[in-house]
């Protein structure tokens, strides 16, 4: 498999770049609906981004180039990661054996730079956030790999662009329990990666209880815009990995499948909103338990795959 040269494979990227902030609006609207409020307008995230991008910046005297690099690297990694994820039956622009690992490690790279930027400020709160971030992600990474390994084994393939269309084929007839387990585990990974309840609460106001938000306390202006956009894009990209499991892409037409994918993403956003409205954030010491639970689900899925295979 090689690098795609025709325009079609880049379409999902364009969709992602354009539609990602909308996911956050959907989540916010859902939560507002549960709270009985009307919520911000759907285009509010775009407005926020524009506003931030047009501002100047204030930097801490403690910080170095590391702090300034953080948001740019974080955004780049998610954009490049988006280039690896297929949509519907469209293979990703970069599709090759093992691209799923590159996907995971790209997210890790972005995370490291966010963490380092946070530590660069010397602030105790940001240090704490950084600490929690690396702690929880150390536990999610093997879960994500295990989930993908299960799918890979099931589809005998080592590329996201092959796995996902194939998942659509066999999916729900012969491997329902397996897919449910994988999807559940991946949902937890998704929530953790994107710093959502029950792992993290993006809307809290108490620094001591934050993870992601506290890390970016000192950023402002275009840097903060990059970060906000990164968050949105990450929701979209990682969300696709879950939605892809449910969309039987090969049974639909190309455009139908694309549509289903996008709709699926918004359903996922609504689901996130529902979860955030009905659940409380876990206590920090309980988070690892949740993640290990996800690991257990993934392991079960793996064992099922083995059972089938042998």
């Amino acid at each position: 498999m090689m690098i795609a040269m025709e325009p079609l494979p880049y379409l999902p990227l364009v969709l992602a770049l354009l539609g990602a902030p909308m996911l956050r609006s959907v989540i916010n609207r859902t939560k507002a609906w549960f709270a009985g409020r009307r919520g911000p307008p759907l285009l509010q995230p775009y407005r926020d981004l524009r506003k931030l991008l047009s501002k100047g910046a204030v930097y801490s005297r403690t910080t170095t180039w590391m702090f300034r690099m953080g948001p740019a690297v974080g955004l780049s990694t998610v954009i490049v990661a988006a280039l690896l994820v297929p949509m519907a039956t469209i293979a990703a622009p970069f599709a090759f054996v093992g691209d799923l690992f590159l996907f995971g490690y790209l997210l890790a790279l972005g995370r490291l730079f966010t963490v380092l930027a946070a530590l660069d400020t010397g602030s105790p709160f940001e240090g704490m956030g950084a600490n929690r971030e690396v702690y929880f992600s150390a536990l999610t990474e093997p879960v994500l790999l295990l989930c993908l390994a299960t799918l890979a084994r099931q589809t005998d393939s080592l590329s996201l662009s092959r796995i996902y269309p194939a998942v659509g084929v066999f999916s729900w007839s012969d491997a329902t329990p397996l897919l449910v387990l994988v999807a559940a585990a991946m949902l937890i990974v998704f929530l953790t990666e994107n710093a959502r309840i029950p792992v993290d609460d993006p809307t809290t106001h108490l620094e001591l209880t934050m993870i992601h938000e506290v890390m970016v306390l000192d950023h402002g202006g275009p840097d903060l815009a990059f970060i906000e956009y990164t968050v949105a894009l990450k929701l979209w990209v990682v969300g696709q990995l879950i939605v892809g499991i449910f969309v039987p892409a090969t049974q639909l037409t190309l455009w139908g499948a694309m549509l289903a994918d996008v709709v699926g993403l918004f359903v996922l956003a609504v689901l996130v909103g529902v979860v955030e409205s009905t659940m409380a954030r876990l206590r920090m010491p309980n988070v690892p338990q949740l993640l290990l639970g996800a690991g257990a689900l993934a392991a079960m899925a793996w064992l099922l795959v083995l059972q089938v295979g042998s």
Partner: protein
Amino acid sequence: MILLVSGLVVMVLAGVAALGCRRIPRLAGTIAVSGVLSGSALALMGAFGALTGRAPARFTLSTAIASANALANDSGALAIDALGAFFLLVVLVVSSLAAIYGLGYLERNTRTGASWFFFNVLVASMAFVVVADDGFLFLIAWELAALSSYFLVVQHDERAEVRRAGWVYLVAAHVGAAFLVVFFVLLGQHAGSLRLVSLAGPLSNAAPLHVMFVCALIGFGTKAGLVPLHPWLVEAYPVAPSHVSAVLSGAMSKLGIYGLARVLTLLDPQEPWGWTLIFVGSSSTVLAILLALPQRDLKRSIAYSSAENLGIVAMAMGLGVFALTRGNQGLAVVALAGGLLHVANHAVFKTLLFLAAGALQKATGTLDIERLGGLLRRMPITGAVFLVGALAICALPPFNGFASEFILLVTAFDTAISIPFPVDLSGLIVVLALGLASGLALACFARLVGIVWLGEPRSDSASAACEVGFLMQAPMIVLAIACLAIGLGVPWMLSGLERPIAVLMNTSSDMVGGVLKRFSAASLRTVVSVGAVLFGTIVALAVVRKLMLRDREVSQHVTWGCGYTATSSRIQYTGSSFAEPITELFAPLIPHESRIRLPTGTLPEAAELEKHTLDPCEHWLYAPAFRTIRSGLGSLRWIQHGRIRLYVLYIIVTLLVLLAWNVG
């Protein structure tokens, strides 16, 4: 081959010369380093042929050693093939760079003559290990390397912890060598000769293959620092001068892998070995990085991560063994390629990290991360290269660490998919171990970079630090560039590994080359282009950001403290608290001793909590074992009670028993 040998001789002679002019430290250093450099150049020229594929060369030293060892029939022979040449390259490149660095590092030391002498002997003997064709010579070179490095480790023997560390190292090296002695004895007995390189073929199944393998694994694994054989390493690496730590970790630990690789060519791989390697490798990987996390000593933390990386190599070899025993040659090629590539990568980034840590130590006088901080401002170059090293060791794209871990992950997935139960489980184990380890490595190095280089200085010595000299910078910069270059040039690197792997698998290099080429085409080339795209995106975004901020107001302020403005450096998050939650989660695996003094009374005094993480293997395995041996031996001490009458009784009883046994 003559070139190679003369290169090594030059090295040793330069060492002797350095010892001779020890009264003029600067001259001694210059002589020794130029000896290492010119010797390495000569030796690599000699080895070049082997790496590029001409027939293995042989060279017989002399019959002198042959006669010292009564039985080995071809003692004293040196030979080099592609596998040896690969390791020779790693050893000599690392050592040369470390030597240049050492020249700057030891600048103000006075007692450098002996230090340089041992350094040169160490480098030469490591090279001898790799080119020894005769097991006996191998052992001699092996022990010589251990011995010379011991003297380097204890260079600052006025400190008690250095003496202790050195001794632990010595004991570990000796015990490891004892297992190798058993291995070679059995090899000699069953193969009829001690040839390592120019052997006739793998040993038949009549030999006690499993016993031999276990002996070799323990012996070589000790040098590599695989868990549970690692405790010496975390003692010795930190206390050694940093250029020596770099050589120990970057070059010497690889000799353990070299040994294991040789063993796989000498003995027919068996499936249980795959399990052993996977098990040892995965537990090394996870446990070592877990232990690296809470360390306060920067070099100790890096040392633990050395054990982690060698564990990764062991897992790669384990997968290779599985693929070989199942006859899946293609998979074996890729697994071993991943392993060898990781050997080279680890040599590059671990050397880099140790050198940078040494620069830090020289600039600040401490390695305690709780006393460092804010150094990126003060030592921009060293900080940047340390960051590169950290990125590489966390296996983040597009650096070299990612390349090898990527290959390994693909192999593991492939194993899990294509090889039937129960071997496919091994693939899963590798995936899980690598996943967990890379997450933990990220945490570990985020902590090291963040606490040491970023934020505000935590002590006066840290705030007074300034950048080190060019002699120390240059090798680090070279290594940092190598991290990126290997990461982006992986497909071409792999084609260089073709012949070493062919030797390792005892097959033709065409087959290996074909497999590697297909693998490169299927994924590695694309990985590289993604890396390039990533690089481009980052640059583009940075430029965009710069352009946007160009005409706007950019101001400086103190860090936002949530309203608290009187911040000081003491308020920062500490390294210990950064590590605490994770170590707490894995508490059953990590023993610790804590001392707590709670506030009591109406006017409580200051409360105190002290917590030390201990090494589980040391704490639960070696310490009790040594205690048992010690007390067991101690309980026999009454034998020598000082009573002469009973001494006579010993003689009589011996006599009577022997008479009765002999005559009756």
